[in-house]
């Protein structure tokens, strides 16, 4: 990095960077632009990137679409519950996997890998039968249960990284001072893990807010649609012609994930990588 780069090479680098910028940004800009356009402008022969007569009517129309609003509420309920339940369940588990030598440590690692390799169709068919038996099909509670198990590999992976970062000496010191195991966990480990818990629950919120396939299989009642389901059904039906509200609704549905992701970004890129990549 100390070597000087020749001006010609620099130029090429900037050209390439601009190319990436265009590829990455244009679809996004186009969706934002469509969301602010009038219906006439959307279908005009020579569309422009910046709307000539920007309007908010697409957003009000999307919000008047009762199916989308209900789906938003459903998604919010599911994502929040999944985040809470998953983190609650994976907190003790990831602590145990880091601090205790047990054969389950290797097994859990194997399971995390296997869960990535096997196509979801293999799990989903028997799961469909089980959920039917428990009468958890077409139920948001059922979906949260499914999401819990689906998100666990990620949260276990993430949280273990945070647990490992806590020096065991702190716990030993607390034990020497006479604190019991439970007391040590609550008053020493938990506060130190707080940032990790927040990050992990945000991450879980995002992935369950975005999830589509499992929702498609386990929710058939349109009243229970989550946002991705509702939007996918909307584009299959009237959304194909009402592009403005479709773009506006999609934009709104992206926001929660984006906001959380912006907060998480640094943590996620450094944290996940330090756990997984050891060159």
């Amino acid at each position, binding site marked *: 990095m100390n070597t000087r780069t020749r001006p010609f090479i620099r130029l090429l680098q900037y050209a390439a960077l601009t190319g*990436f*910028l265009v590829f990455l940004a244009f679809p996004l800009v186009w969706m934002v632009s469509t969301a602010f356009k009038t219906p006439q402008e959307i279908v005009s022969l020579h569309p422009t990137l910046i709307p000539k007569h920007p309007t908010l009517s697409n957003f009000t129309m999307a919000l008047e679409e009762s199916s989308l609003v209900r789906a938003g509420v459903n998604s919010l309920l599911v994502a929040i519950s999944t985040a809470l339940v998953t983190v609650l369940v994976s907190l003790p588990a990831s*602590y145990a996997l880091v601090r205790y030598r*047990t054969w389950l440590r290797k097994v859990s690692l194997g399971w995390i890998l296997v869960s*990535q390799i096997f*196509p979801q169709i293999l799990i989903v068919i028997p799961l469909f039968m089980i959920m039917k038996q428990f009468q958890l099909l077409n139920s948001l509670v059922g979906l949260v249960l499914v999401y819990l198990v689906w998100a666990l590999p990620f949260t276990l992976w993430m949280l273990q990284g945070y647990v490992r970062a806590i020096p065991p000496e702190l716990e030993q010191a607390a034990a020497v001072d006479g604190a019991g195991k439970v007391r040590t966990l609550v008053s020493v480990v938990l506060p130190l893990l707080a940032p990790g818990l927040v990050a992990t629950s945000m991450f879980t919120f995002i992935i369950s807010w975005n999830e589509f396939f499992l929702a498609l299989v386990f929710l058939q009642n349109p009243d229970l649609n989550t946002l991705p389901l509702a939007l996918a059904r909307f*584009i299959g039906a009237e959304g194909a012609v009402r592009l403005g509200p479709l773009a506006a609704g999609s934009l709104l549905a992206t926001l929660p994930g984006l906001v959380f992701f912006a907060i998480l970004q640094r943590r996620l890129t450094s944290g996940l990588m330090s756990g997984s990549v050891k060159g």
Partner: protein
Amino acid sequence: MGLTSTTERPDTSKQPRSRGSRQRQRQRREAYLLLVPALIPVLIFSVYPLLNGIYLGFTDSRAGLNRTTHFTGFENYVRLLQNSMFWESFKIGLVWAFGVTAIQFLLALGLALLLNQRLRMRWLVRTLALVPWAMPSVIVAIMWRLVYHPDAGLLNDVLTRMHLIDENINWLADFSFALPAVIVVGVWAGMPQTTVTLLAGLQGVPSELHEAGAVDGATAWQRFWHVTLPQLRPVIVAITSLDFVWNFNSFGLVYVLTEGGPGGKTMLPMLFAYNEGFEYGNFGYAAAMGNAMVVLIIGLMAFYLWTRMREAE
């Protein structure tokens, strides 16, 4: 913060103290107690269904009440072998997975190398490169449907203005353009993970190696080829294998973009199996397709990792 103190710390804490077996037993009980809340749901809703799913692939299970399921051995697979539509979909899945993974890797490597330089506007591109990660795949698909839209789309307009095409193309409904168009979307959607991983790998390459190369008069290209790339190899192998598996098993993106159309030209194996299972209710047959996919993935992965290992030696 406490990095120096940890290295100087006497190593006594790491040595297992001689514990009585009673204490070890208590420890084990503690560990199990902490693990149980995660273990039970995983066993019921993941491990059991997975094993059962593999088994269902050898039965004639169908959706619906009051049906008895029979073990049919390899009958499903004999049928699969004769099912040319499934093999067509398998081929499409391989083209898609290889295409997306390879293009994605090359682009992401280029981007990571650029982001590793001190360039202006780097922060903007870095932020943009992460956005797809935060987006639901359904919305990525909707967004690209707006771009590919035959009448109101950005792509047709740009190409017309550049006089590259005379009339608007319906990209996602065209027999020859649909699969490439879908692959572009797949590349876009998967850029973040690949770029971030490769960037992290690049930052792990010790700069002394580069400086030594520069002192020896190696050109930038030579340093990239002989220093950076070999150092990056483990990261590259890991991320390309993961990408391949994810892409081969992907569903939502293409489902919303084309639903497998036109005429099955973008029918990925997962879409095919989903239709078989949940449109037609042939659970056993769909599970058999899932098994076929796993066997293929594991085979390809084993081959890939084996060749990489041999190359490394």
